[in-house]
């Protein structure tokens, strides 16, 4: 018993350190966003909401947020469509190369962003530009979609595997056509997985910076890029803190929802 108690304490300590690693910097950012001092300083010298106000009215921030939202929505839409179709193809049908391709499709999330970025950049340059499509928001959307597809695919494929084939069979057995089965049975079964996948891919797209810098056209600046560019400007640093603080708070929500929805008990939406 003494051993188990000691082990418990040890694991508790480990968990505590891990949490501190992850969250201490975030807390510093949040605290600093209310700090009177203009430079990153510790301990904080006084409380102010002026940086939050400045961030709110800052035109650069507003444009960047809008760009990021557009990119995230676009990439998520593409990912939902292609990712769910691909997962149905992989889970529900057997075809040559199925196993290999289901591995290949999740590779983009493991590949270093810099590699994806370079590859996309030269691909767009050689394929899209001759077609008259130049670098801009659209190329960012395409770039983000490559890894967003993976997130949707993983979520939906896992759900499809868990629900098994028998619900679809029962539906067809009761007289439903393929289309009716898709609408009344398959879609409701994967709906929450789709939502979870969408939330995660939006979150992924929203904080992407490496692929973005290789695929964005001139004048296109997403929020992460704006932050990166303004972080070391003395006047902007506190505003960056406020923006980062806002992001932390905002992004807890979708990630929490996605987490809940991908659990089996996390019923319907």
């Amino acid at each position, binding site marked *: 018993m003494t051993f188990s108690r000691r082990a418990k304490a040890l694991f508790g300590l480990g968990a505590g350190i891990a949490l501190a690693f992850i969250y201490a910097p975030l807390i510093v950012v949040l605290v600093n966003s209310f700090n009177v001092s203009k430079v990153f300083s510790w301990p904080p010298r006084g409380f102010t909401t002026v940086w939050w106000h400045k961030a709110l009215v800052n035109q650069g921030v507003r444009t960047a947020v809008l760009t990021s939202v557009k990119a995230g929505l676009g990439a998520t839409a593409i990912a939902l469509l292609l990712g769910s179709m691909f997962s149905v193809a992989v889970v529900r049908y057997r075809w040559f190369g199925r196993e290999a391709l289901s591995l290949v499709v999740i590779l983009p999330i493991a590949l270093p962003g810099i590699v994806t970025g370079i590859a996309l950049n030269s691909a767009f340059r050689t394929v899209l530009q001759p077609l008259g499509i130049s670098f801009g928001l659209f190329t960012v959307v395409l770039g983000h979609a490559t890894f967003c597809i993976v997130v949707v695919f993983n979520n939906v494929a896992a759900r499809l595997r868990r629900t*098994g084939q*028998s*619900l679809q*069979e*029962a*539906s*067809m*057995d*009761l*007289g*439903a*056509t*393929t289309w*009716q089965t898709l609408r*009344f*049975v398959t879609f*409701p*079964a994967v709906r929450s997985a789709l939502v979870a996948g969408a939330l995660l891919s939006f979150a992924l797209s929203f904080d992407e910076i490496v692929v973005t810098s290789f695929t964005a056209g001139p004048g296109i600046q997403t929020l992460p890029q704006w932050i990166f560019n303004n972080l070391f400007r003395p006047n902007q640093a506190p505003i960056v803190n406020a923006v980062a603080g806002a992001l932390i708070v905002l992004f807890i929500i979708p990630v929490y929802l996605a987490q809940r929805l991908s659990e089996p008990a996390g019923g*319907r939406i």
Partner: protein
Amino acid sequence: MAHAASQVASDVEGSPRGAAIRLRGLRKEFGSVVAVDLVDLDVEDGEFLTMLGPSGSGKTTVLRMIAGFVIPTAGRVELGGVDVTARPPFDRDVNTVFQDYALFPHMSVQENVEYGMRVRNVERGQRRRRAVEALDSVQLGGYGARRPSELSGGQRQRVALARALVNRPKVLLLDEPLGALDLKLREQMQVELKGIQRQVGITFVFVTHDQQEALTMSDRIAVFHDGRIEQVGPPAEVYERPATEFVAGFVGTSNLLRGAAARTVLGRDGIWSVRPEKIRVLDPGGVAETGLRFADGVVREVVYVGDVTRFVVELDAGGELVALQQNLHTSSSDVLAFRGRAVRLVWRPEHEFEVGAGTAGSPPAGGA
């Protein structure tokens, strides 16, 4: 066993009611594995037919070919005289009760039962009324608003049954529907299912690996082995006159006498079998009325089961037989004292039957 099956088939073709299901030369390969091989079977209208066999014997694959989930590699599936081999599941007048029930988790019990009518555009009022009736008929009146997850295993089973029956199919397919239930509930549902079948008069094709279940419920049993049908017949016939060694062993205890043992005890060659409950256990040298068969041996094992006791007897002539005795006047201590004792086993010669070697194509020995 193609021979036995085609014999049955010709019997049925002559009957006035005709075949609800007719399978001809059905074969299914999964890659290099032959799951079902040359199955011929006719199921009469209104019949309760059980496909019995161990797992992997092909019975479920045959069921799924009737339902339309599996496309046969070769052969034909006819429903009510119409060839449906190439038709998708939703275009066949059969409904299935699945092993895992396959109730739609996001719909209420009522919506589950209405589903078949909903996708066929049955008018809403009629749909609702029929679903309520169907739920009543399986003793689930008032459960309509619940979710499947709020029901017990037995209740889910009934919902699955109601969901299928409410569409009034010509044929109901049941894929080991009682497999997940505990013994008591299982036995209760066996009686209920049989009652429902008699009441609605729909053809039931029931898949199970449980021989007791098959014997209890069926009008006829088709015994599957290695993708083929070894024997088709009424329960009593399959049990009392198994056509092959496999059937003898799978439906009941095989209790075989062969080689030297058969020659010494029966004075004959071949493989013979006697059901355990037909054998009486007597003291050595105990009276053998004329005309009775007997074999001497030593009790190797005694298994007290409560209502009966199972004696495993090693025969002096070689081999062993299992004898089942009712515990009419004996208690556990009485019967357990039999271990190691010399006994004489006695049975009537008409309860012996010869079993084929179990190879496909050999004629059923007891069929005459």
